[in-house]
Each structure stands twice: as structure tokens, then as C-alpha cells.
């Protein structure tokens, strides 16, 4: 496997016994340990409340871990959040962006706060072309954009940040098949740029299509983690339901 050959000593995204218990007592994440290496696309599968978004929120230090730690490029996020975030780009589930700004203006703002103040309009155009946003939409306000168009802007922002790690929270939810396909191709090209990509999704088929590693989450626990190659011949949907059922009986027992 290519990934195994190029595997580097330190993973880009890493959690170690990461646990999050909310104030109301809900255990959202239960000692999660995972690693994502550069050039690896790690997909977290799971239903609502499985802990996928909590994991991403912990990586971004939007919440503090109860115990354990998450690190980006070896930097523990809740200790040095600002330093850690320099190395990560984020695409959220429903990218709203600034509705009164044009696509270019949004890109301009986010690339500047992402630490790239040297980019020109041409760079923005290039990246928007790369993500497949039609030329005539570049200077339009985002108000009239469809979800797919906004998602393209969101990924363009992530690309512009040029960070070694990318976190994606349900990025394909609500996209039409064509947009979903284009999105997956983009991820593929980002992986080939040696980015470490962590994506959460409900979408089993896309996961199987693109992932290097697939993990199934349920109730804050990672109940399965396998290289996608090992699952190539299996029906992932069946496997998913099987795991969930098994976990449920375990939890019940």
C-alpha cells in the first residue's frame, strides 16, 4: 500500500484517549484514540450523536476535553490552540459564509485570517476554478448561492489556507449527486497533495469510495476501525448495521 510506504513517524492529526463529558453528564466521546497521517483520508461514520462532531470540535478547541488530548502536527490543541490551528483547515457542514460578501471577498477575508495576506485576486480565481465554481459567480454575493456553491467556496477557503491537515464535518450532506462527486474528486486531489484529512459523514457509499481508513462511531466510542482496502470486497452498509447492532447488544448487556 502506498500509504504504508510513505508513512511518516509522526501523525498529523492524533487523539489520545480523548474523552468529553458535557456538564449535563452526557458522555459524548469516550477515550477515542486515532491517528491520521499526511496523505491519509480518515472517514468517521456514525449516526447522530455518535461523537463525530465532538471529535472535530475538540480538534478545533471549540470545547475542552474532559481527559486525554487531541493534537495537530504534534501540538496539543487545548494547550496551544492558536498554534495548533495554524496547521489545520476546516470545512463545516453547512457553510453559510458572509451573505453580503462576494465569493472573492469571502475568500479574501478567510485567507487573510488564515495567515495568507499575500494572495491576489488571480489566486482566488484559480482556486475557485479549481473547486468548480462558475466564473460568473465569483463576484456575486453569496446570498443567492445554492448549498453546493457555498460548499465549493468553503472548500476553496480550506485549500487557500494550505494547511497540512483538513477537518471536514459532514461536508457532503445535502449536496446533489454531481456536486457530491465533484467534491469527492477534490478531496482526492487534496490527499494527493499529502494532506491529512479527517472527515465525518453519514454517507457510507462516498466513504467507501474514497477513504483510506474507515472508522465507525457510536455513542462516543469508536467501535470499528479498518483500512478501507480491507473492506473493499465487503458490503459496508451491512457491516455498519452489523457493528451497530453488535454494539447495541453489548451496550444493552
Amino acid at each position: 500500500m502506498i500509504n504504508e510506504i510513505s508513512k511518516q513517524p509522526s501523525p498529523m492529526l492524533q487523539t489520545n484517549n480523548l474523552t468529553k463529558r458535557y456538564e449535563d453528564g452526557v458522555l459524548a466521546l469516550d477515550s477515542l484514540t486515532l491517528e491520521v497521517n499526511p496523505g491519509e483520508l480518515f472517514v468517521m461514520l456514525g449516526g447522530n450523536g455518535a461523537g463525530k462532531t465532538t471529535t472535530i470540535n475538540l480538534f478545533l478547541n471549540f470545547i475542552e476535553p474532559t481527559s486525554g488530548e487531541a493534537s495537530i502536527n504534534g501540538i496539543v490543541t487545548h494547550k496551544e490552540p492558536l498554534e495548533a490551528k495554524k496547521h489545520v483547515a476546516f470545512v463545516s457542514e453547512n457553510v453559510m459564509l458572509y451573505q453580503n460578501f462576494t465569493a472573492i471577498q469571502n475568500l479574501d477575508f478567510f485567507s487573510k485570517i488564515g495567515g495568507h495576506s499575500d494572495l491576489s485576486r488571480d489566486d482566488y480565481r484559480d482556486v475557485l476554478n479549481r473547486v468548480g465554481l462558475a466564473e460568473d459567480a465569483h463576484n456575486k454575493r453569496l446570498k443567492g448561492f445554492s448549498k453546493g456553491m457555498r460548499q465549493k467556496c468553503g472548500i476553496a477557503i480550506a485549500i487557500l489556507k494550505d494547511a497540512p491537515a483538513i477537518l471536514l464535518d459532514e461536508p457532503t450532506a445535502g449536496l446533489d449527486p454531481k456536486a457530491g462527486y465533484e467534491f469527492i474528486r477534490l478531496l482526492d486531489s487534496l490527499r494527493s497533495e499529502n494532506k491529512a484529512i479527517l472527515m465525518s459523514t453519514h454517507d457510507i457509499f462516498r466513504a467507501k469510495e474514497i477513504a483510506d481508513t474507515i472508522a465507525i462511531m457510536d455513542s462516543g466510542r469508536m467501535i470499528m476501525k479498518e483500512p478501507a482496502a480491507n473492506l473493499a470486497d465487503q458490503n459496508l452498509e451491512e457491516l455498519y448495521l452489523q457493528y451497530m447492532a453488535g454494539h447495541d447488544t453489548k451496550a444493552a448487556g
Partner: protein
Amino acid sequence: MLSTLIQKELKGIILSPKFTATFAICSILILLSVFTGIREYEAVSDQYDSATSLVEQELQDESNWGHMSTRSIRKPDPMQIFVSGLTYDIGRWSHVESTRPIKLKHSPYSDDPIFAMFRHIDFVFIFQFVLSLFAILFTFDAINGERESGMLKLVFSNSIPRAKYLIAKIIGSWLGLILPISIPILLSILLVIIMGVPMNAIHWATLATLIALSVLMFTFFISLGVAISAWTKRSSVSFLLSLVIWVMFVLIIPRASVAAAEQMVPVPRISEIESIREAYANDRWKTFYDISEERWMTSSNMNEEESEEERDRAMWDNMVLEDSLRRIVEIEIEEYEVRLLEELRQRKAGQERLAFGFSRISPSSAYQLAASGLAGTDIEMKDRFEESMSQFRSSFVDFTEKKQAESGNTGGIMISISTETGIDIKDGSDNSALDLTDIPKYEQPRRSYAQAFNSTIIDFGLLAFATLLMFVASFIGFLRYDVR
């Protein structure tokens, strides 16, 4: 980095559709208020001019120094264009004469109650009611609105310190809202210059301070909106909350505190005080007349010869005596009155302290109090004018009395009834014009800029403190804000 964030805030405000609407409204309102204020000022200035020339004419028509009276008139001040305050509620002029104390009467609103129905709009009104509302409307969702659109997550997936983001947010919204209102403000200053309002250096300094004060008040409401949005998760909640707070601050607290003070410190009405004074005066005069009657009666108990002798001997002395006693009674009544009024003033001052102390919970009323204090249209205004008019009254009365003594003309009507010549009636007027060259002229009360400014220091400080408090609240709220 900071400048990028600020720029984004600024752009965000300027590009929003509500910005255009509010900007247009603010511009129209500010210009309208200043324009109507200037017109109103011109009208009252004309009225003042004609009234003063009439007063002079009346003095010139006088033919006798005895019991001469005049009127002192409150001169309009250009600052009332911006802060009308109590200008229209307080009397325009007072009688100046020896027998009656100074009392401002004929307030512009009582003369033309139609204007009282809806009152005037001035610069301070626009800031206090409209701009404060707009400030809140632009900032109530500053933080939680961004959370709802997921922007906070996106922004904070970058290495941006929260404090920096919040500072940029506040500075950006501040600039975004201040820049547009500064345009109509500058235009209205231009209007003041073009329309030839007589502004002196003090006026300009006061106006500059007023603008600074207004900007401070505006900043408070901006920071209030930001603070509320940094403490609430949903913008619909913060919207409701900020609107309720706005209603409380701007509309309710000021009025409620006056109502509370009215109940807690009862102050008698001036009419009651006047009647008490009148009762005292009646009493004093009655005693006076009784005594003087008795004195004259002593002669009537004598036989004709004795009485004539007594009269010739004592008449002049009696008259002199009576005159000096009369003076004493007058002085006594006046002293009594001064005491009564002083007591009333004390009570009123207590009531005011309480009312305004309460009302200062609301920065909006602190602003109004400071603005009217600056412009000299505050609650002290009446006292200030009545005091200067009282001073004028005493110098005027002294002068006319001195002149009358010099001229030897008693004035009034002299009726002599004699058994020989029958009745002879003369009135004291000698129909020749009086020499009015040295007559005291009423000087409008003067306030230096320092005095005007000093009266506002507490409110300035309160506003600044409240603003700071809101900043701190925003920071505390935002540093622990859940951006998810």
C-alpha cells in the same frame, strides 16, 4: 490581522441592506432636526428682539420714576437648536418691579400649546431615541448571529485569538456606524454656518463636547448590544432582550424615577407658597396700618386747636416715620418670601437629586441630563435666569428709587381735599422724558465653558463607566462563549 477583521466588520455593515435604510433615516432625521431647530431659533430670536425693543420703548414712555416697572426677557441661545431641553417649558420673561418677586412666565409651550402636543425634535432626541435603537439593532446579533450561521466555527478554526476578534468586532461596528452618522452631523454643522446662526467660541466648544458625548452614548448602546449577544446563544433571544432593555433604559427608567421621587419627596406647589406669603404680607400690613392709624388717631382725640398744633408739629415726622416703617415691612415680607422660596428650593433640590439619581441607572437619561447641562437647557436653567433677573431687579429698583428721591416726584396720584379749595387731584407725571442713560440693563446669565462642562462630569463619567462595563461584559461573555 486586526485590520483585516475590522475591515470585514465594516464591510459587513456597509454592505447590509439595513445599513442603507438606517443611514438614510439618520441623515434625514439629523438634518431635519437641525434645520427645524435653526428655524425655531430664528423665530424665537425675532420674538426676543421685538420684545426687548418694546420693553425699551415702554421705559422711554415712562414719565415718572415712581414704581417704575419693566420686564426682563430670556434670550434664546443657539445651543437650543441641538438640545432644546427645557427651553420651551420655562417662561420667557418676568415682570421686574418692586412689589412682586421675579417669576418667569409664559412658557413657549403654554403660549402655543399646539407645539406641546408633539414637542420638538432635536439632535439629542434623535440620538437618544432613534440612534440608540439603531445601535442595538446592528449589534444584537453580533456574536450569536455569527454562531448561528456557523461563521464563528469557521473563523475560529483559524488561529485567531478571541479577544482580538472581539476588539475588531467592536471597533468595526463602531466605525461602521459612526462614519455614516458623522456625515449628516458635518452637514448640519455646515447648515448652522450657512444659515448664519450666531455661534461664538463657547458654543462651538460646547457643540463639540455634545457631539463627543453623543458618540459616547452611541458607543454604549453598541457595546450593550455586543454584550447581550455575547451572553446569549440565539439571536432571537438577544433581539427580544435588547429591545426590552432599550425600552427600559430609554423610555421607562427616566420617567419612573421622576414618578417615584414625586411620591417620596412631596414638594408643595408654588401657588400654595404664594398664598402663604400673601397671608403673611396681609398680616404684616394689617399690623402696620393698625399702628399708623392709631398714631393718626391720637390727634383726632384732641380738640381742634391742639390737633392742628400737633399735626403741624408731628405731621412731617410722622410721614417720615411711616415711610421708614413701610420700608421695614416691605423688607420683612421680602425676607419672609426669600425664606419660603429657599425652603421650597431645598425641597425641590432634594426631589431632583433623588429623581435624577435614580434615573441615572439608565445611561440614556445620564446622556440627556449631560446634554442639557452642556447646552444650559437643564433643570438649573430656570433658577439661573431667575437669579440673574432677581439681581437685575434689585439694581433696577435701587436705581429707580434713587432717581425718584432725586427728582422729588412721588408719582401716583395726589388727592388733596381741603375745606377751602375743595378737591384737587394731581397725578405725579410730569410728562417730560426721563433720563435713561444710566438705567441698569438686564444681563443674560453667562456660563463659561468650564461651568457647562463641570455640570456634566458625573454623567460623562457614568456613561464612560457604563460603556466600559459593557466592554468588560462582552469580553467575559465572549471568552467563555461556546462557538459551536
